[in-house]
């Protein structure tokens, strides 16, 4: 470890970044995302740890994670598995409990969120002292890959309606690539009850409500390389329900 630390640029602070990776059947993606995370953290010289929260994947994700832990070390890869699928919110709570960093990244483990943006998140946070920095597909150089017209239309339409109804002060509400101050994430997660897409939206809406400052970094979202991406009628209905709930309660 000493050699790695000395090879990286010296940062005159004690900030440490914990990356929470909730996984379910990601045996192919997990090694790749971990490799990329290590690459970009090492290059930029920030202190980090990766916390893998596997919800009892039947495909053996955990076994792959154990191999990765051997390769990269127990101080870099932490395994905090759970017996079964229990939802994103509780996965974050579970992960935060074990996080030793003062900042926490949340992102998807399916390679749709590229770790190359991590240094930009960190710089953005330091620039403005933000409580949370959110990746955005909808502004600046942000964008998506692998979406057909229908998907783009639904995404833009849903975002527009949400912006009109909630005026949340952030351009991407359903994205889940974000950097939080640890205590801010802890507080928000406790307050948020929604599921799925709406969970991320509720997090940012409540953050604004509680007066937290939000920074944004444009990101490119490359839709799932391995595995299937889902956006069916059910997702849309539950999104609208969630949106109306937030509209009436926040």
């Amino acid at each position, binding site marked *: 470890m000493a050699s790695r630390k000395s090879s990286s640029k010296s940062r005159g602070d004690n900030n440490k970044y914990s990356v929470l990776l909730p996984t379910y059947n990601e045996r192919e993606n997990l090694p*790749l995302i971990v490799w990329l995370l290590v690459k970009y953290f090492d290059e930029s010289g920030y202190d980090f740890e990766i916390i893998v929260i596997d919800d009892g994947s039947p495909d053996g994700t955990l076994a792959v994670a154990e191999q990765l832990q051997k390769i990269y070390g127990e101080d870099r890869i932490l395994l905090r598995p759970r017996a079964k699928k229990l939802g994103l919110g509780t996965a974050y709570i579970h992960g935060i409990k074990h996080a030793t960093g003062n900042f926490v990244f949340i992102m998807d483990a399916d390679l749709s969120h590229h770790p190359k943006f991590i240094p930009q998140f960190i710089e953005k946070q330091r620039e403005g002292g933000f409580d949370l920095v959110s990746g955005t597909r909808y502004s600046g150089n942000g*964008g998506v*890959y692998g979406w057909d017209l229908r998907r783009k239309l639904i995404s833009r339409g849903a975002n527009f309606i949400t912006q009109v109804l909630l005026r949340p002060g952030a351009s991407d509400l359903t994205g889940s690539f974000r950097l939080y101050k640890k205590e801010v994430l802890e507080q928000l997660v406790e307050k948020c009850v929604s599921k799925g897409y709406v969970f991320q939206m509720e997090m940012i809406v409540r953050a604004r409500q509680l007066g937290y400052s939000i920074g944004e970094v444009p990101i490119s979202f490359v839709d799932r390389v391995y595995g299937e991406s889902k956006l069916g009628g059910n997702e849309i209905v539950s999104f609208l329900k969630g949106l109306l709930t937030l509209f009436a309660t*926040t």
Partner: protein
Amino acid sequence: MTKLLQWLLGASVFGVAWGLVVLDLMNLRLPRAYREVAWPMPMYLLVVFGCYSLATVGYRVATFNDCREAAKELQAQIQEANLDLQKKGLKF
């Protein structure tokens, strides 16, 4: 105040103002022209907002960035990562 209440408040203020002019509730003796303009105003605003929404969403869909380069870069990095991980002893 929730967003819902904000909207209701906004709508009531608008509704009252509209009612005052169109139905002349307070005998303001406004010129007839005012009433004629105000009468279709809610419908007119709704149509304008609808057009604005369609135009905005349409424009944003049309200009949604296609991150081809990012996808290509990722594919290349996946190859690189797989080789490196194999070297490090990862069994897939």
